[in-house]
């Protein structure tokens, strides 16, 4: 009954005229011809399966590669970078012998189709990247974007996504310490589910994805392989290649966080005993990816016997096994004499582990099935020599009109009452409202090292109990800004994440990103992408924070309508002693509130323009990265030297949003005075970058002022922590109760 004859390498060489379904597998004609050229013959079905998945946009970055190179070319000199772009995740030195690895990834499309499982397996995937570097995962973050808050489909997608992220992350024992929730009609049908993870290790524990040392064994461990996510390969599995019946294989995977938890513990135990030479997680493209990457990054070749792969479904064809995206699997390279011990540890944790192959001293990746050789390739050609596209890009013709539609000219509130109403409307708007209903579905406390979690400006984790060493992370992105100007928008995302980290007292060290865009085949989208990458690379160079890795998600669009260009940036920082961290909440009545930075009339892309006028136009706020750096230094010094007791960065919603949040969190009000030279409206709603509000104990005021003065950072005393409400002198007062109701009732009312 099996297909005869098996499509071996030999058979392929002897039957050059057999037509393969390369187009159905997503390859272009020239790509297929390139495969034939590389092999010097037609590929076998199994080889075609491997090339097609590895050369897909998702795995090969073929549209984005030419731009992403800038992250390397423009990388700032940084002593902190231990492992850069190209590995599963970047690694940074955080001192005292510790290294930290972190990365953000997308799971957008699956989360739309099956919100719970799509989001859950997104968390699972990013966590395996972290383990694969040798680190213990210590926290996750989840930047999310959904369609309009009141759209019925948002009510289907959001609760499922949140439950999935929580369901998986909570079950793994990873505290969720930050993220974003943004609503915008542009994400309708294309929600963005990005997930990030951080891991901690000692320097000497860093592991890389490479197979070296002839004779070393390749061990596949974790879940059995099933027919998950292999739509295309089923065509190859069918009786004849042209009998392309509809796939019965699911496009969505179901995650098993329990299995992943066992995988973490057993991998870490194997690391502790120094049993692992190289390691790779199985994510997109499954075994095709793991074997070709391990082999091409190492010194030798590799042979794999596919018959030895433990299966969940015995009917799977070899092509399907190679393409399967079954979750919770890892691949380790282990010296022969250590194999027994490795298998023992797996057994201890009830994890299935099987030797499936061996490192050779050749340079080929050879895969066998039922005794026949079905793959014989140079692994580099699969893993690294995918096509590279110079896709055409062009500034869209509507960009000028969009920028000319100046938000600064929108009608402003005419009276104090109107101003007050707009403040209430702002803090109650879905994007500015409290996300507690969502974030309380995540465990913040597990592992016992969470110093800061949402709704703080950055999440912070203690790394060393003795010294108090800690790391902080913040993720930010603003698709509205990026739509108005993708170059500036990307830099604003970077600036905001950088500022968020510094606001909590940590020193920003490095960057990861997740670039969410529409179709690269649209020159306008490609221009947005190119501009955003250029902006981010330039910005990272200027701030001295290298990009250590990230992820690109394209084709986020429905028909002609692309999402707003949405570069999400994660900044990682370090703090020498977490006892010095600065929280958002006002701590003590009587403390002086200072506004740091310059406030200009900048309303393009602002929350105010969206909430009050449903408007998007003009230019986003100006970026001044030198100012961001200076602001960061002041915030870090002030925290270290105990000059401030709370701090909050200013971003969407402007000053009033920040002050309301600090007041509500601390349960203490604020009395504010509009500073000279500003009108109340601009003071409250402007979104000028490079700003923060801090609360200074009276005893520290002179010292703090001197420091800001000496370094040339504008610091304006704008009020005092006091009372039961937020008062803008001469304008209005809103009680904390009123503000709390407005801020906290919106999201539950929409979703609960």
């Amino acid at each position: 009954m099996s297909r005869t004859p098996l499509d071996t390498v030999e058979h392929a060489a002897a039957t050059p005229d057999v037509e393969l379904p390369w187009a159905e597998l997503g390859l272009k004609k020239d790509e297929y011809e390139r495969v034939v050229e590389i092999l010097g013959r037609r590929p076998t079905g199994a080889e075609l399966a491997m090339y097609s998945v590895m050369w897909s946009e998702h795995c090969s970055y073929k549209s984005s590669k030419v731009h992403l190179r800038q992250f390397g070319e423009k990388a700032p000199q940084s002593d902190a970078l231990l492992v850069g772009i190209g590995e599963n995740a970047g690694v940074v030195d955080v001192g005292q012998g510790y290294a930290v690895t972190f990365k953000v990834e997308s799971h957008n499309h699956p989360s739309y189709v099956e919100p719970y499982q799509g989001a859950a397996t997104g968390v699972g995937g990013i966590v395996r990247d972290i383990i694969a570097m040798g680190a213990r995962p210590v926290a996750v973050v989840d930047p999310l974007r959904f369609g309009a808050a009141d759209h019925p489909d948002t009510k289907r997608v959001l609760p499922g996504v949140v439950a999935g992220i929580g369901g998986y992350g909570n079950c793994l024992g990873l505290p969720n310490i930050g993220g974003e929730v943004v609503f915008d009609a542009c994400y309708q049908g294309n929600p963005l589910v990005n997930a990030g993870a951080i891991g901690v290790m000692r320097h000497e524990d860093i592991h890389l994805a490479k197979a070296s040392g002839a004779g070393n064994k390749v061990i596949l461990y974790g879940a059995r392989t099933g027919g998950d996510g292999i739509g295309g390969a089923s065509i190859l599995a069918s009786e004849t290649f042209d009998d392309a019946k509809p796939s019965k294989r699911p496009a969505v995977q179901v995650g098993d966080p329990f299995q992943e938890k066992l995988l973490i513990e057993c991998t870490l135990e194997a690391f502790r005993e120094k049993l692992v030479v190289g390691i790779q997680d199985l994510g997109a493209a499954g075994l095709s990816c793991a074997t070709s990457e391990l082999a091409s990054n190492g010194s030798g070749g590799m042979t794999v016997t596919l018959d030895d792969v433990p299966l969940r479904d015995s009917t799977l064809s070899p092509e399907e096994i190679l393409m399967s995206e079954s979750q919770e699997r890892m691949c380790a390279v282990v010296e022969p004499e250590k194999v027994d011990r490795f298998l023992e540890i797996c057994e201890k944790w009830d994890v299935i582990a099987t030797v499936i192959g061996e490192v050779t001293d050749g340079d080929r990746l050879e895969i066998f099935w039922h005794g026949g050789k079905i793959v014989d390739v140079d692994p580099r050609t699969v893993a690294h020599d995918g096509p590279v596209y110079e896709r055409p890009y062009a500034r869209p013709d509507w960009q000028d009109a969009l920028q000319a539609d100046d938000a600064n000219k929108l009608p402003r509130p005419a009276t104090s009452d109107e101003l007050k109403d707009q403040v209430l409307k702002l803090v109650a708007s879905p994007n500015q409202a409290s996300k507690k209903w969502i974030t309380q579905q995540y465990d913040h406390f597990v592992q016992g090292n969470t110093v800061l979690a949402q709704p703080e400006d950055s999440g912070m984790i203690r790394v060393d109990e003795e010294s108090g060493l800690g790391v902080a992370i913040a993720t930010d992105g603003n698709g509205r800004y990026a739509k108005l100007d993708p170059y500036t928008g990307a830099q604003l995302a970077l600036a905001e994440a950088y500022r968020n980290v510094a606001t909590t007292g940590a020193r920003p060290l490095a960057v990861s990103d997740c670039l969410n865009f529409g179709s690269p085949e649209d020159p306008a989208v490609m221009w947005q992408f190119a501009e955003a990458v250029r902006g981010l690379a330039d910005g990272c160079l200027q701030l001295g924070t290298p990009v250590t890795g990230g992820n690109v998600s394209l084709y986020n669009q429905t028909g002609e309508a692309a999402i707003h260009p949405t570069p999400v940036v994660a900044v990682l920082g370090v703090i020498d002693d977490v006892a010095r961290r600065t929280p958002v909440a006002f701590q003590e009545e009587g403390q002086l509130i200072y506004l740091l930075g310059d406030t200009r009339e900048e309303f393009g892309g602002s929350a105010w323009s969206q909430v009050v006028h449903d408007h998007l136009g003009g230019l986003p706020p100006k970026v001044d990265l030198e100012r961001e750096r200076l602001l960061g230094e002041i915030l870090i010094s002030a925290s270290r030297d105990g000059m401030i007791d709370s701090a909050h960065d200013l971003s969407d919603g402007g000053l009033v949003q920040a002050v309301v949040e600090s007041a509500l969190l601390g349960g203490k009000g604020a009395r504010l005075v509009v500073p000279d030279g500003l009108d109340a409206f601009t003071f409250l709603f402007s979104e000028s970058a490079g700003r923060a509000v801090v609360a200074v104990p009276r005893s520290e005021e002179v010292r703090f002022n001197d420091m800001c003065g000496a370094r040339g950072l504008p610091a304006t005393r704008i009020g005092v922590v006091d009372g039961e409400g937020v008062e803008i002198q001469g304008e209005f007062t809103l009680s904390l109760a009123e503000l709390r109701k407005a801020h906290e009732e919106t999201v539950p009312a929409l979703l609960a």
Partner: protein
Amino acid sequence: MARVVVDVMLKPEILDPQGQAVQRALPRLGFEGISDVRQGKRFELEVDGPVDEAALARIHDLAESFLANTVIEDFTVRVEEAAEVAEAAK
């Protein structure tokens, strides 16, 4: 009043971690001879009025659009006989 039962199970090709966990525990509990366990959901709907073709068709729609996600799950709809109900209540 009648009871309609909707059973929702993960498709056979989809991983069922719950069922697997149950199955793996069986030997420890001294149960042998069970080669596979799948765990799904059972919904019992109490329907006012007669359960005619039309009503069943509507419940079928409900199952398809809401009770199950047909990307990963299969479902069946059936009317529970009064006898069965009595039996189950025992």
